[in-house]
């Protein structure tokens, strides 16, 4: 997963958009698609898909959410 995320993800049942977002570390898009934010935090912790604590934080904080943390348009 660290060396070649696309290859590691190849066997998984993901849509093209899900796969693109994950390989790109586009966690904001994934969150808006319904992925659990807590769970995605592991991507930054283990620094895969180009993520680290800094850019993960920036991308997630860019998502607008309502009072209970759900994404809004």
């Amino acid at each position: 997963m660290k060396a070649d995320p696309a290859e590691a993800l190849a066997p998984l049942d993901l849509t093209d958009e899900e796969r693109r977002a994950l390989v790109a570390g586009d966690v904001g898009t994934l969150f808006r698609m319904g992925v659990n934010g807590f769970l995605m935090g592991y991507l930054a912790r283990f620094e895969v898909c180009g993520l680290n604590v800094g850019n993960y934080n920036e991308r997630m904080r860019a998502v607008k959410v309502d009072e209970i943390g759900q994404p809004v348009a």
Partner: protein
Amino acid sequence: MAQIVAGFGVPHTPIFPHFVKRDGPDCEIAKLFGAQKQELAATRPDLIVMFDTDHLNTFFLNDLPIFAVGIDTSFKAPNDEPRDVPNYTVKSHAGLAAHIRAVAIGAGYDVGMTQNYSVDHSITVPLHFLTPDMHVPVIPFFISGHLPPLPSAQRCHALGQAVARAIEAWPEPLRIVIMGSGSFSLEVGGPRMAPGRSDGVPDPDWAARVIKLLEQQQIDRLIAESTEHQMLKAGNVGGEILNWIAMLGAIGDRKPNYIAPQMQNGHAYGVWRWN
């Protein structure tokens, strides 16, 4: 007969063992857990029942109970690699765990179970600080506090009462401590993180309100105000307060010896001792 001798509310921040190793015994975290460790030793516990929310490590999205008990003679901890936490084997008590589950089911709670299991930082980190030699057996009681729909605060409090009835009907003369593990307001990995961090405290006013209600022994008020909306507003792990509320149900209506807040983390360290 078994008896409940104390209640503890504990945080479980996974990076805390690393911070204490880095900063030494005089840091705030070491002192706060150190004080609780002394209080716990003074209760001479034979066993701990810990209400806890698993972080998708013991259970996952394909198999997620609202309530579950760990039933085995021991379990491994931790299963999620928090920094500077060794691998432990923690003793448990399969007979009492099965009895607690049976009594809870009899009281109307459809409680799942797990055997041959491991637990994550949410159980391991408090034990790492409070019983580092792991000499006290532990029964984990899992409450789903992260993924809505969440169980209600009222129901978790009554569940704690059912667990107390189960313990009080157990024939061994065990001194049992009840623990509730978790935060009052915390977002982990979600959009409400603080800048540059992996977590944040979205609703510090709620954390302060919880601490005030605990100190004033206004548990009915705490239950009424701990709605699902409020828990989710408090962060994506804000439902962990349900573990404290279940603990409060088990120990009964008592005044705490102390509640020590750590407001920057949205949590506290609480002790209720009477025996």
